[in-house]
């Protein structure tokens, strides 16, 4: 069984998101306030998916002992009469970086790439075996050390954030290694055949991809959309013309495209749209979706 453990650990060394450029910058202290806020706001969506994912894992097991242990993870996030849960602690981090708590917890402004990645995790667990689902959770093996690094970085570089806002990370430094050890023992004890080994490695690989995609989704907010040079605007008809297609737009679409000057970030464009259309509740997501659609139609590039 040592082989499987080695495979899983070297996979994490290679592909866990500690190597993602966004995390590297976070830990080097070079994230801007805006980037930090975007990350905290969006990563909360991931936090909210975790207890759902763990509840799904509970339904897969016939073993009362397993369920008794595993249900603790749901309580860790949701909290109980004794302990404040991870979700609440994350919202305090949100308060600490200056986010509007109601906006964060409403989940309406989550970036589309982040939403896709997090939903993909829940869907993965829903569609796979207990063993594979637990194997996918083993990114926890690397989470403990990452949290330590993160706390140091926050205390040293991001001094504008209240130290008390970091309680989430502190809680995870002890929870993650304990959860990881339990998960690892389960996987090593239940992966019996070669086929099981392959499936566990594949599950953890997929999970690493998901965490990576989540950060790609966060970085997208800082990219600067620009209308491609080959496009021609027909303003009187609200139309953008490309070599292979012409797209008719409504007035809001035209407004967004006119902001795509290669200088404004996705974040800024969404903010401007909210200031102008503050009665539309979904203005952020509408803007994001439109920008993604125009990208896949070949009308935008990102700088």
């Amino acid at each position: 069984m040592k082989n499987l453990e080695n495979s899983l650990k070297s996979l994490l060394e290679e592909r866990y998101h500690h190597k993602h450029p966004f995390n590297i910058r976070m830990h080097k202290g070079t994230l801007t306030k805006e980037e930090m806020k975007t990350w905290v706001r969006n990563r909360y969506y991931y936090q909210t998916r975790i207890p759902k994912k763990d509840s799904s894992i509970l339904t897969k097991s016939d073993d009362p002992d397993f369920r008794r242990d595993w249900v603790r993870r749901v309580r860790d996030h949701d909290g109980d009469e004794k302990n404040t849960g991870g979700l609440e602690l994350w919202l305090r981090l949100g308060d600490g970086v200056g986010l509007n708590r109601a906006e964060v917890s409403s989940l309406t402004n989550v970036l589309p790439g982040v939403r896709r990645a997090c939903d993909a995790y829940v869907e993965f667990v829903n569609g796979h075996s207990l063993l594979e689902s637990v194997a996918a959770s083993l990114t926890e093996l690397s989470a403990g050390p990452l949290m330590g690094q993160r706390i140091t970085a926050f205390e040293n570089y991001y001094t504008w954030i209240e130290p008390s806002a970091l309680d989430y990370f502190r809680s995870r430094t002890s929870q993650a290694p304990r959860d990881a050890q339990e998960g690892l023992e389960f996987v090593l004890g239940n992966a019996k055949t070669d086929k099981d080994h392959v499936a566990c490695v594949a599950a953890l690989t997929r999970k690493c991809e998901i965490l990576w995609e989540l950060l790609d989704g966060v970085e997208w907010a800082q990219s600067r959309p620009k209308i491609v040079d080959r496009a021609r605007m027909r303003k009187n008809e609200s139309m953008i013309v490309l070599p292979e297609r012409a797209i008719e737009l409504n007035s809001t679409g035209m407004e967004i495209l006119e902001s795509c000057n290669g200088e404004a970030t996705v974040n800024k464009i969404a903010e401007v749209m909210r200031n102008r259309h503050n009665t539309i509740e979904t203005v952020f997501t509408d803007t994001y979706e439109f920008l993604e659609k125009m990208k896949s139609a070949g009308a935008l590039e990102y700088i």
Partner: protein
Amino acid sequence: MNENFHRPYNLIAELTYRCPLKCPYCSNPLDLTNYTETLTTEDWCSAFEQAAKLGVVHLGLTGGEPSTRSDLEVLVKHASELQLYTHLVTAGMPIDAKRLAVLAKYGLCSVQLSVQDSTPEMSDTIAGTKSFDRKRVFAEEVRALDLPLVLNVVLHRQNLENLPEIISMASYYGAHRLELANTQYHGWALKNRAALLPTLDQLKNASRVVQDSRLLYPEMEILFVLPDYYSERPKPCMGGWAQNTMVITPNGRVLPCHNAGTLTELEFWRIPENSLEDCWTISPGMNTFRGYEWMKDPCRSCEYRERDFGGCRCQAFALTGDMNATDPACSLSPHHPEIEKARDESIQSAPSFVYRDSAKKTGGQI
């Protein structure tokens, strides 16, 4: 204009059927002798003006090889003054760098270059003439002028194996879009069907190659669809008959698609004798297959009719002799066994090409 008016967004101007290439899959008409270039520069300019008024946005200057016409510069200049998004569809010859630069100065918006394969030997063999090296240089000339480049490669059983090289060539040429066009068995191509029709294995492999390439070349749009001979539903030809695109042939005939001239029973009108608007809106041929009234079963009662519009009228006519029939590419067509037979025969070894030579009076017919 009445409420039944369909806005034409695209005008495909077939300026000429002359072409330096001799591709075995040429889809231009077989009877080239009937297509003398009767339209003058003034006729084309007037057609562009009328098209812009009707709502046309895209103008494709094509052929044959459009650069065999000496008035191409005038046409591009006029079209761009009309704010038409003007697209040149070319083989990259005989046009040279100097002429291309003039076209760019006059407002040409983008260029589509056809390439036949990924190596000089294969590409020249398929084109039936030495052309690959010139095309490579032409692609450089296009990008040097900062013109957007679309690469078009017609796929068939003789070049499908080279798909990975074709895709990397397109990226190397700086194309923002690669159109991998399946051979359509019209005109000359039907004669060569047995030499061109790919096998199912080739296509499955090609699909995988395209999927991977979309990850490897994220900035290049790669267009690839399973050919209609291998899908159970026919292609939604032109997005429906005479809905958004009109074609003008070198002798002024206004058609709803490139091949509609093969439907000999239909009456299409010509410019300059008629206005472009009349050719588009009231000519009998243009209205024959608009909407769903013309359909017979299985199309009439089919849930897919609004998705594929009964498929391609020209293919239905070419294979069944009845232009009202369901496209045989559809598995619901009573003529579908004809398609299945061609597929089965594709497993056997392919015969050699019958080349086309547009300079010969017979249209290259042997």
